[in-house]
């Protein structure tokens, strides 16, 4: 409970910096709204699905969707904190997926011989980072809104993906590649499983049993680990380093930040590259898991990433947001996107209606909480 001025405590001037106490301090954090929404969603889905959504496979599958949303949402949120948008995320996913699958099927470009999962990934990453740099540079140099610049890259990259597929592959999908995650540790890192011990322990303690009585699920999808890594790094940078302060300052008041020596342009270009990196990780996880790629991969994901950032408490106007909030937002959005399929009573085609309602409700709740805390920022 709040440590109020009970009689035995001597008060000092410094107490004025800590009005309230631990609970009140907790309630002032930017992610608290997102947290409340997340808890409500988790509990209601657990009840409505009879716990199905969180049994061994349900948990794995839900976290798989949450993680892939979470990875791109962090890239989008960092950009939004710096008051920029990236609408090219979805097309970047399509481009990266196409690039990797194409190299694995047809070999490296310029006759460099057959590709390994690692060479395909890093060559693709080099390209996507270069495109991210280009987007950032155009935004910074031209002074155009990043909304417009990345919108044009949304079309450009999707078109390029399609053209490359048709010109080189003759078909807009690649399917039936060898199962690289069986033979390559690098591919397993993206498309394999992680945290197997969790499910081993679950099995040993009596749960996680399939219909045949053996151990059911053997591990989470690897993208969960990637989500943790990306989130942890982003959180460290944002809340523990000078670069983090630069990002907030860039989004809050760009001219003041520039006047104070913050390398505003470099920060923005760097963040567009981070967003491209997140999209590439997303694509690598899908390509190496399913050994397929198609030209429509990642369609509309840019809007979902922005939606998650907003549900997570990131402000559309920049300068405000937290990684923990975005993590909560990803959990909320990922669950809602899958939830109705666990509930036989609801026709599956209602899920978009459901997503829309929850999105709006979450943002409203978030705003109320945030305004109460910040005094109407």
């Amino acid at each position, binding site marked *: 409970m709040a440590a109020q001025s009970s009689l035995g405590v001597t008060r000092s001037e410094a107490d004025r910096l800590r009005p309230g106490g631990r609970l009140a301090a907790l309630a002032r954090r930017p992610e608290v709204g997102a947290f409340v929404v997340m808890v409500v969603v988790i509990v209601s889905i657990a009840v409505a699905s009879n716990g199905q959504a969180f049994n061994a496979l349900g948990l794995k*599958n839900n976290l798989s969707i949450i993680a892939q949303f979470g990875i791109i949402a962090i890239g989008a949120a960092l950009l939004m904190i710096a008051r920029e948008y990236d609408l090219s995320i979805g097309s970047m996913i399509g481009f990266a997926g196409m690039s990797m699958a194409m190299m694995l099927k047809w070999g490296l470009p310029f006759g460099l011989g057959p590709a390994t999962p690692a060479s395909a990934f890093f060559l693709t990453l080099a390209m996507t980072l270069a495109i991210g740099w280009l987007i950032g540079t155009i935004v910074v140099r031209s002074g155009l809104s990043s909304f417009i610049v990345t919108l044009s890259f949304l079309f450009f990259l999707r078109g390029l993906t399609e053209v490359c597929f048709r010109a080189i592959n003759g*078909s807009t999908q690649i399917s039936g590649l060898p199962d690289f995650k069986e033979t390559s540790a690098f591919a397993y890192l993206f498309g394999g499983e992680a945290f197997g011990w969790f499910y081993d322990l679950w099995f040993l303690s009596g749960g996680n049993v399939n219909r045949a009585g053996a151990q059911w699920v053997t591990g989470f999808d690897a993208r969960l680990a990637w989500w943790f890594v990306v989130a942890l790094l982003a959180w460290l940078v944002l809340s523990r380093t000078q670069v983090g302060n630069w990002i907030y300052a860039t989004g809050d008041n760009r001219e003041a930040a520039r006047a104070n020596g913050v390398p505003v342009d470099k920060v923005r270009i760097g963040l567009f590259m981070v967003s491209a990196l997140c999209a590439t990780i997303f694509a690598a996880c899908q390509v190496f898991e399913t050994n397929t790629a*198609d030209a429509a991969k990642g369609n509309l994901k840019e809007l979902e990433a922005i939606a998650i950032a907003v549900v997570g408490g990131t402000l559309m106007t920049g300068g405000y947001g937290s990684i923990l909030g975005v993590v909560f937002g990803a959990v909320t959005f990922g669950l809602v996107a899958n939830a109705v399929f666990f509930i036989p009573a609801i026709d599956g085609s209602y899920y978009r209606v459901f997503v829309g309602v929850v999105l709006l409700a979450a943002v409203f709740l978030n705003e109320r909480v945030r305004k109460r805390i910040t005094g109407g920022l």
Partner: protein
Amino acid sequence: MKMVLALAAAAVLVGSAAHAERIVMVTHTQGTDPFWPVVEKGARDAAKALGIQFEYNFPPSGDMADMAKLIEAATATKPDGLVVSLPDPAALGNAIRKAAAAGIPVITINSGLEQSRAVGAILHVGQPERLAGKAAGERAKKEGAKKALCLNQEAFNTALVERCEGYFESLGQKLNMIDVSNDVAQIRTRTAAALQADPSIDALLATGPHVCEAAAAAVKAVGAKVHLSCFDLSQGVMKLIKEGQVAFTIDQQQRLQGYLPIVFLHLYNTGAGLLPGADIPSGPGFVDAKNADKVQALAGVDR
């Protein structure tokens, strides 16, 4: 005047090979669908074999009004034949009727069988989707399906819904369909969720090849014994059929939808209106363990 020009063109065509026959194809794809390149290649192969000049166009926006504009633009170039897909007869009807009125023979392909004549086309080549769904349902029933679920990646696409409806008609069940989205990870998790939510489901129909592959992974993860059948082909689906995880897939044989109209238009133009007496169903063809090997070599390119 147009008549005279057309006659003159025909005369030149018969008289010398200098004026090549020219056919334009306009279809509804946003370019990302792996289905249409197979149709395009079929048409190109036919055109090459017959020495016909061939042009292909599609509206990248997916907007039917844009597609109507493309058909009008193609009509303005006075081709010797027009091949169009007909997903929305109301939006495209006028443009096609104008082409027909200008004396250009039009063949409709893919969807739009019922409206083909009404918009002025001389023939339709396509797969009646409901019929294909019914064929899938009949076979699934014979192979022991009792309670089914249809996995649809575009629940607002009437052709895909008709596949599901036909399937359930044969099974004698009420339509039970979920929208699985086009994201391969979500297809897998949503299918697994639905299978867990209702363990009595013993049959799945996937209305696309990427849905099929992801659904097979979901069935494996849940550990359910499910009769899985699919629509359309990919290398991955072929592999699953050979491994026994997928019972069969319905092949719409869309190469025929590209190849045949070119041949028919050529015969129509050079044979005084030579024309088959009925519309051509390009599918359904079945691909199962028996013919998977042969089809696999061509999947995604010619099949």
